[in-house]
Structure formats: structure tokens, C-alpha cells
């Protein structure tokens, strides 16, 4: 297994424990199959968190509602996968979402990059939404044939949602890419910023291979052709050029995240860590 872990804390000093009011993190050593599923579930969850940041800030009221609707679809998908993993490891979905440390999240880095915060543009949100939705759609379509019956059922439901996500986000990519001078410029900048992070989406590693061998789901490289078949025509319609591939590789799926991830988790997990087991 290629996944690496930060060393477990040896013994926290009592004073440090007393000073901290937050709940302790959960830790477990996932199997490759569990890591494989958390990569997808975590990508849904973290992307949902980024989309939800647009709540109250999208350019128009109707799109504001649309983005949070999409986020809720993604939360539903994340819940299903994390519940499934949790059942095998003795945790519930909330513990997995809110009590894991940064290094134990396996989402693709592209999902965690700053959204509305940090001065990023609506164009970035639109483009990421499109490129990730396209990946999810191709992935769900293949996972619907998973040897794991529960994963197949989750995917069968999610593929309908992702199909709409691709249509909705792709529509915006064309509108902005082929829109005004200003929107075209911003969309091209978003492509330059985000495209390098798409390489990670198709890099097969030992986790993928183990998942494929056990019949759980496809290796990432197998998703590229389907993804390109969705992305390329929309880019062409939008008048956007696909950049040349570079050497940069992001590593979120191995638990090594960008500097933005810690802030995202701090906000996402604050409530559950301050009020352990809190329900609404």
C-alpha cells in the first residue's frame, strides 16, 4: 500500500490536553479498498464544502440555490460512502467526516483549492465544478458495476445526480468561456490555475490497482478517455484551449494536502469537535 501516515502522537502532555477543548481525532489504518472509497467520498465532501461557501455569494440568487443543491447531492454521496467505510472500521459517518486529521483525508487536491475565499473567481468554482463532476460521472458509471453490491447501489443513484452536475456546470463553462471579453479572460485564467491539478485524477497507484484487482472499481487511468470525451467538447464550445500537460502532481489522494486544507477542515470540523456527538 502506498498510503503514508504521519506518526501517531506518542503521549500528549496533560497540560496540552487540558488546554485543548477539542475532541481527539480518530485514527485507523485503512485497507487499500477503504482508501479507494474515501478518495471518492472525501472528494465529494470537500468539494461540497467549497460549493457551500458560495451560499449567499453567488452572482445571482438562482445560481446560489443551484450551487448549494449540488453541494447537498455531494454530501449525500459522501455520507453513503463514508457510512460504508465506517461500518467496516467501527466508526460512523460523522466521526469520519469531522474527527479525522488532514493527513487521513484522501480527497484530490483540486477539491480543496480555495473557492470564493482567497480572492478566487466564480470562474474557478464553475470550472472545478465541471471538471470534478465529469470525473465523478465517469467514475460512478463504472462503479455501478462494482463487485461490492452496496457501492454499486450508491453509484447507481449518484450517476443520475452527476449527470445533471456535468450539464449544469458545463453550461456555465460555455457561457463564461464564450461570453464577454471579461468572462473569457477570467475563464482562461481559471483554466491555467486549475488544469495542473487534473493530472492527479488519472494517476493510477497501488491503491487503485488493489481496488481493481478485488473488483471494487476501476484504476484512475481507466477514467481518462471517458473524462476527455466530456471535457473536450465543452472546452471547444467555450473556446478554451486545453493546456499542455506538465510535470506537476498534486498529492491529496495520498493524504498530502495543499496549505488550504487545514483551514477548510478547521471550519468544517469546528462544531463537531467543540460539541462531540452533537446532533440537530
Amino acid at each position, binding site marked *: 500500500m502506498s498510503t503514508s501516515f504521519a506518526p501517531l502522537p506518542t503521549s500528549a502532555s496533560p497540560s496540552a490536553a487540558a488546554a485543548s477543548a477539542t475532541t481527539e481525532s480518530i485514527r485507523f489504518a485503512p485497507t487499500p479498498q477503504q482508501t479507494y472509497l474515501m478518495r471518492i467520498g472525501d472528494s465529494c465532501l470537500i468539494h461540497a464544502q467549497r460549493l457551500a461557501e458560495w451560499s449567499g455569494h453567488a452572482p445571482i440568487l438562482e445560481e446560489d440555490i443551484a450551487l448549494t443543491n449540488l453541494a447537498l447531492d455531494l454530501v449525500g454521496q459522501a455520507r453513503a460512502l463514508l457510512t460504508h467505510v465506517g461500518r467496516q472500521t467501527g466508526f460512523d459517518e460523522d466521526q469520519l467526516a469531522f474527527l479525522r486529521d488532514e493527513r487521513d483525508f484522501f480527497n484530490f487536491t483540486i477539491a480543496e483549492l480555495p473557492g470564493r475565499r482567497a480572492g478566487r473567481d466564480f470562474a474557478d468554482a464553475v470550472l472545478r465544478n465541471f471538471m470534478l463532476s465529469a470525473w465523478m460521472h465517469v467514475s460512478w458509471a463504472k462503479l455501478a458495476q462494482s463487485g461490492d453490491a452496496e457501492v454499486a447501489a450508491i453509484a447507481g443513484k449518484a450517476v443520475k445526480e452527476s449527470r445533471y452536475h456535468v*450539464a449544469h456546470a458545463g453550461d456555465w463553462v460555455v457561457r463564461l468561456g464564450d461570453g464577454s471579453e471579461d468572462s473569457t479572460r477570467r475563464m482562461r485564467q481559471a483554466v491555467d490555475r486549475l488544469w495542473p491539478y487534473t493530472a492527479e485524477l488519472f494517476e493510477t497507484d497501488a491503491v487503485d490497482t488493489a481496488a481493481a484487482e478485488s473488483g471494487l472499481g476501476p484504476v484512475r487511468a481507466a477514467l481518462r478517455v471517458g473524462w476527455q470525451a466530456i471535457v473536450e467538447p465543452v472546452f471547444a464550445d467555450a473556446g478554451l484551449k486545453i493546456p499542455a500537460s506538465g510535470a506537476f502532481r498534486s498529492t491529496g489522494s495520498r493524504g498530502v494536502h495543499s496549505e488550504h486544507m487545514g483551514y477548510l477542515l478547521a471550519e468544517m470540523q469546528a462544531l463537531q469537535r467543540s460539541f462531540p456527538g452533537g446532533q440537530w
Partner: protein
Amino acid sequence: MTASATDLANANANAKVQAHEWPLWEVFLRPKAGLDHKHCGSLHAADSKMALQLAREVYTRRQEGISVWVVRSDQIVASDPADKAMLFDPMEDKVYRHPTFYELPPEVGHM
């Protein structure tokens, strides 16, 4: 500024705002098969494709419908509220317009 100059300035400002605003669309939903589409609200959208998508987002989030119609609000021809009395009041006192004087055989059930 004279009154007419103010009016002109306001008209220009309005035209400018309107040129930057997306048109308004009326949304009709069919709650389930066999029922009619019913008007449920309106929204702003740049074109028909966006209007359909946003109608889905705004008005069908809790499974309210299985089919959506959208139509540009400015394409709807509406009766003038001032004509309400002329158009609709004359029907009020003409019970013979309603077929309520027939004896229905019980087998017919609800009409």
C-alpha cells in the same frame, strides 16, 4: 434640471439597467402524471436553457414536480386588472350558467 430632462435621464438609466438584467421567466410545474402544469413562480435567466435549469433548482428541490415549463414573462398577454368588473362580474348572478338543475343518477358518481 428641467422635469423633462430628469425624465429623460431616468429613462436612460432604466434602459441601461434593463440591458444588463436577464429577462424574467414564469415557471409552471406538473406535480404528477395526469395533472396540469400549474404556475408556481418566476425567475431571472439569460435564456430558455438556463431558465429550465434554474427552475429545476429553485422550484423542484423537494420533488414538487415531474415536468417543468418556462415561458418569458413578456410573452404572456394578461387581462387588465381594471377590466375585472367588466369581464368577470356579469357571471356572478347567473346561476343558470351552471348545470346545477339536473338530477344525476347515483351511478354517475362525482361529476
